[in-house]
């Protein structure tokens, strides 16, 4: 663990953390579009440990999903390209694997659930058959007995994620299920190969509050049972506060702050994090006095045309008229411990 921190400081980390079930090192992913090159993710490094939940927050377009898709080898190429970096899972650097081995590894070691389960469910196949098929893809030539076993396992998995009457549900089509039930099915499919890492990209954003609470409870239960490491991508600070162990805050493709959830939310050390927390209305006292909110002024930068220096500089209230922010890209550095880092030139001056 210590050697990782050291190599990170020197900018050329080589080895993953030994206790990390997922280690991302210096990941940089770009997209080539008509409007120019989009720096979607730049120099992102982090570890996710077994049994831990890591939250990734940030505005739309800040690179949360691209980070996740890169870890799964799912970046469409072209227009996308993972320019550099390493993604270590279970002793393998996924980015050094050929396509075939990557598919295999990313299916069984890293699984993902999305905001809209319909995009990953086949509308014309029964739920049970789809889960069984997922189980069988990792077997060369499944026998009849294997198929029968996979079908039974599918029903068990449905039961394990709290789908009522799993035998009957297995026979249904995706459109016959509610949004919450579909997300349960997705979790069952994702967990069918005992992954080490589960990436959940806005898993509850499309769901109603009471159903979101059910799904988050289910993810906690699944984690307790399997010790899977969960990467929870969300824009909901409340979900982060209640569910994650550590947080990455992303802005314009970079990690601007990382640390334990207590440190980052209660003692933020980057002006963007401070702004994000201030404009989160659920942090207002819950009396019923009407009040103005505290927005972050301005707009997020255009990803094809990032300002030099700190990307947050045009919206930052701390900068004043200091030139350094416009000239030099701030690096992540201890704030003040290795466990809590911020990429602000003046992080010592940041107050919550």
């Amino acid at each position, binding site marked *: 663990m210590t050697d990782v921190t050291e190599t990170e400081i020197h900018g050329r980390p080589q080895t993953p953390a030994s206790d990390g079930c997922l280690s991302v090192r210096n990941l940089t992913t770009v997209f080539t579009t008509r409007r120019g090159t989009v720096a979607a993710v730049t120099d992102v490094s982090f570890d996710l440990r077994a049994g831990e939940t890591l939250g990734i927050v940030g*505005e*739309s377009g800040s690179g949360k999903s691209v980070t996740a898709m890169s870890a799964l080898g799912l970046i469409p190429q072209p227009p996308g390209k993972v320019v550099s970096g390493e993604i270590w899972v279970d002793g393998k650097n996924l980015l050094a694997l050929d396509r075939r081995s990557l598919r295999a590894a990313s299916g069984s070691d890293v699984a993902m659930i999305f905001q809209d389960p319909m995009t990953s469910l086949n509308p014309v196949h029964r739920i049970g058959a789809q889960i069984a098929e997922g189980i069988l893809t990792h077997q060369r030539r499944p026998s009849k007995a294997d198929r029968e076993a996979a079908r039974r396992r599918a029903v068990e998995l449905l039961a394990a994620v709290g789908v009522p009457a799993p035998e009957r549900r297995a026979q249904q089509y995706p459109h016959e299920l509610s949004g919450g039930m579909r997300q349960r099915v997705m979790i069952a499919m994702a967990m069918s190969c005992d992954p080490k890492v589960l990436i959940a990209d806005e898993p509850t954003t499309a769901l109603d*509050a*009471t159903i979101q609470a059910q799904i*988050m409870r289910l993810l906690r239960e699944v984690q307790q049972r399997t010790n899977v490491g969960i990467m929870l991508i969300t824009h909901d600070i409340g979900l982060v*506060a209640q569910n994650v162990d550590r947080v990455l805050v992303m802005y314009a493709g970079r990690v601007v702050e990382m640390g334990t*959830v207590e440190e980052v*939310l209660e003692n933020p050390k980057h002006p963007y994090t401070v702004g994000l927390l201030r*404009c989160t209305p659920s942090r207002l006292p819950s009396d019923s006095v009407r009040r103005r909110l*505290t927005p972050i002024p301005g707009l997020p930068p255009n990803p094809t045309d990032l300002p030099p220096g700190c990307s947050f500089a045009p919206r930052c209230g701390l900068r004043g008229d200091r030139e350094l922010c416009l000239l030099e890209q701030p690096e992540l550095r201890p704030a003040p411990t290795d466990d809590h880092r911020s990429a602000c030139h003046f992080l010592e001056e940041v107050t919550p």
Partner: protein
Amino acid sequence: MFHSTQQDVMDPAEPVGEELLRIEGLKIHFPLGRRRHGQYAETVYAVDGVDFALHKGQTVSLVGESGCGKSTVARSLVGLVRPTAGSIRYKGMDLRTASRSQMRMLRREVQIVFQDPFASVNPRMRVRDIIEEPLRVQGLPRDRYVAEELLEMVGLQPVYANRFPHEFSGGQMQRIGIARALALKPRVLVLDEPISALDVSIQAQIINLLMDLQDELGLAYLLIAHDVAVVRAVSHRVLVMYLGRIVEAGPEVLSDPGHPYTQALLSAIPSAEVGSRGSRKEIILEGDVPSPTDPPSGCRFRTRCWKAADVCAEEEPGLLDRTGHGALNACHFPAHE
């Protein structure tokens, strides 16, 4: 009877402005499938008996889960859906019996802002034409700089009038959507999830803009939003809907809920305070919302309610001031009784 209750629960600190819209016994049902033997296979009871009023300078918010009928109520106020029963009165005029010129006034003075600011505009139109379109449609004169003035009012630069939608971010487009809704000098704005598609940092900008405009112009808002914290921060009065009905209404129901559904809804919203982790009492409702084609008898919430008793299946609980605290509650067993 309803009139007096409605007045009673208004926050006494805020003087109640002129009443602009009054909705009584509103029902909106959608028949599904083919008609056979004079009957439809199924009916969606989207809105099933809703009463409320909007006052000048005040925000009434509708909260509840998807499919509970919030948007249908909103759309009925601007004539996008027809009520099956009940009345909508604007400044005392009943929509069912209004004359043509009264209807035109109503269509001008009650405007709607939608969730997706890009979906409701033509991408090939310049911002100027987008903003002026309602004036054109109504056949009203257009002052030379009307678009510029409206853009300034919503915090955008007047020169944007000559640009096209794709040049703007979601937050900027939502400001343009608001400018367009203001073109006809409305008295009432129906805001249907106006910030749900935006980033939090931008949501706060739009909410503040809406509050400023309300103070400046004395607008009445009907706000539909699922972010309970936003609703709590901006509303004078909140209506909680479940399956086509209002289950609880009052100025403080989101701080001090008395209906089990409101309690569950609030409990389901994760607190942004790390400190509260594990210490909050969590109510996690089981199951899904029942289908609005076949709502449960009696109290519609009873199938998911932990307090449900026999009476809940037999008797529909009315929306009444049950505790003397001023809030209206449609539960046989309200909290703090």
